[in-house]
C-alpha cells in the first residue's frame, strides 16, 4: 500500500512537473540541488545517444540595473556563469547556464533540457522538476517566515 502511495505521488508529481512552463522548468533546473541534478542527467545519457558539445565554458553576464529614482539603466557588474550547449540525436539542442563556475551542473542542466526538448524525458525528470519546485518554494518560505519575524512598527521605537 505504501509503495502504491509512493508510486501515485511520483506519478502526480510527474504530471505537475510536465505542466510547468518552459521558463519555470529552466529556473528550477538552474537552482536545483547539484548532486540530484547530475545524477538525473547521468541516468538520461544512455537513451540520448551521442552528444555533441557545442560549448562548455565559463563567461560573464553583465547585469543591468534600473535606478529606481530616474529609471536609468546602468551596469551593476558582471556575474560569472557556467554554460553548456549540446546537440543530441535528431539535431535537438539542450542548454544550461548556471550562476557560478560549476561546468558539470551546467552540462547536467543541458542534458535534461535536451531530453525534454527531444520528448525523450522519462517520468523521473518531471517528478524531479516538481519535487525541486516544492523544495525551492519551501526554502524561500522558510527564509521569508524568518524575515517576517523581523518586521517592526516604527512607533515602538
Amino acid at each position: 500500500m505504501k509503495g502504491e502511495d509512493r508510486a501515485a505521488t511520483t506519478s502526480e508529481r510527474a504530471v505537475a512537473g510536465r505542466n510547468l512552463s518552459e521558463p519555470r522548468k529552466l529556473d528550477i533546473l538552474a537552482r536545483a540541488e547539484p548532486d540530484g541534478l547530475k545524477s538525473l542527467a547521468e541516468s538520461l545519457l544512455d537513451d540520448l545517444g551521442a552528444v555533441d558539445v557545442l560549448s562548455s565554458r565559463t563567461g560573464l553576464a553583465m547585469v543591468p540595473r534600473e535606478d529606481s529614482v530616474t529609471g536609468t539603466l546602468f551596469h551593476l557588474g558582471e556575474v560569472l556563469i557556467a554554460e553548456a550547449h549540446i546537440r543530441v540525436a535528431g539535431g535537438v539542442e539542450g542548454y544550461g547556464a548556471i550562476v557560478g563556475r560549476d561546468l558539470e551542473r551546467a552540462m547536467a542542466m543541458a542534458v535534461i533540457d535536451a531530453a525534454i526538448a527531444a520528448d525523450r524525458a522519462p517520468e523521473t525528470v518531471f517528478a524531479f522538476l516538481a519535487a525541486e519546485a516544492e523544495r525551492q518554494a519551501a526554502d524561500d518560505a522558510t527564509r521569508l517566515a524568518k524575515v517576517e519575524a523581523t518586521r517592526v512598527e516604527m512607533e515602538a521605537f
Partner: protein
Amino acid sequence: MAYAATRGGEAAIGEAERLFREDLPSLTAERVAMVRRTLPYLVDRAMGEASLYEPDLAALAIAQAGGDLYEAVLLLRAYRTTQPRLWTAEAVRHSDIFTVRRISAAFKDIPGGQILGPTLDYSHRLLKVGVLSGETEAADPVTPRPVPAPPTQPALVDWQREHGLVADTRAESVPLDEIPDVTRDGLLFPAPRAHRLQTLARGDTGGMLALGYANMRGYGPTHPTVNDLRLGEAEVRLRHPRGTVFSAGRVRVSEAEMVSKAASGGTLELGFCATFGWNEVKTIAGATLDLSMHFESDYPAASEEFVLYHTEPTEASGFCIHFKMPHYVTFQSSLDALRGANTDRPAKGRAGDAAPDPAKAVEEIVS
C-alpha cells in the same frame, strides 16, 4: 614619471613573496570554503568592488592576499579580464528583488512595511571575549512567523511619485546592449548617469564612506536621510537559445535611496546607489554622493569628477602603492634642483638684495 628598473633582485623578490606567504597557512580549498562561509560580508565587499560576482573566487582572492582587500580586488579584476562577456542579462528592477531587509528612516509607514532583516543595527556592540577562553557562541534560532514575508516589496519612490513628493521624470528607455559601460567607454565629465551609477557600484567602500561622510557632516549641499534601504537577491535572467528567458540563479545585492531633508522646487530630491553583495555603508554613502552631485556646489566631495576619480579602488590603491616602486631618477632630479638652489642661495645672499626666500627656493626646485 620615470622609474628605475629593478635588476639582480630576482632571488630577493622570490624570497620576499615566500616571506609574505610563510606567515599564512597553506592555501587550500578548505581554507577558501572557510573564508566564504565565515566572512560573507567581506566576500560581498570584495565582489562589489571588483564588479565580479563569484563568491568562491572572491573568497580565494581574500585568502590568497592574506585579507588585504585591495590586493584581493586587484586579483579579481585581473581574473575578470580573462573571461569573455557572453551575455547581457535582463534588467533588474527594484520590484524584482527577493527582499530580506527593507527599511526607511524618512517615512515610518511605508508600503510593504519595515523589515529589519539580518542586521546588528540594534545590537549591543560587545566583544565576545569568552570565546577566547573556550566558550562557544552559537546564535539562538529565529522564531519564524506562520505567514512568510512577501518575496518582493513595493518601491517607496513609486508611492512618493503618486503623491507628488518626487518629480515624475523618467530616463529614456535604452536597449540593454547600448547601456553606457564605463569599463569600455572610459570616464568623461559630465558623466552619463549610467556611468556615474556604475562607477559607484564598483567603487571603494572606504573612499565612498569618507566622501559621503564629508557630505553628511556639512561639507556638501545636502542633508541626507535614508529613504529606502534594502538587502536582497536578484535573479540573473538570461536568454535560452530557443528565446526563453530564465533565471540562471540569484546574486546578493544591496541598494539605497537617500533623500534630502531640504525640498527643492517643491519636491524631494533622491540619490541612488546599488552594488553587488550586502554592503549598506557603501550604498548609503554612494546614494548620498549621488544626491549631492545633483546640486551645483563648490564642495569637492559633491563634485562628480572629484568623487568618481577618487573612489575607484584599483586605480586609487594602485596609484598609492606605486610610490613604493623605485623613483630614484625623479627623486635624483629633485635633489639636483635642491642642491642647485642651495648652491645659488649664498651667492644671491652675498649680493645683498634680499634674504633667502624658502618659497622661491621651492619654486625653483619644482620648476
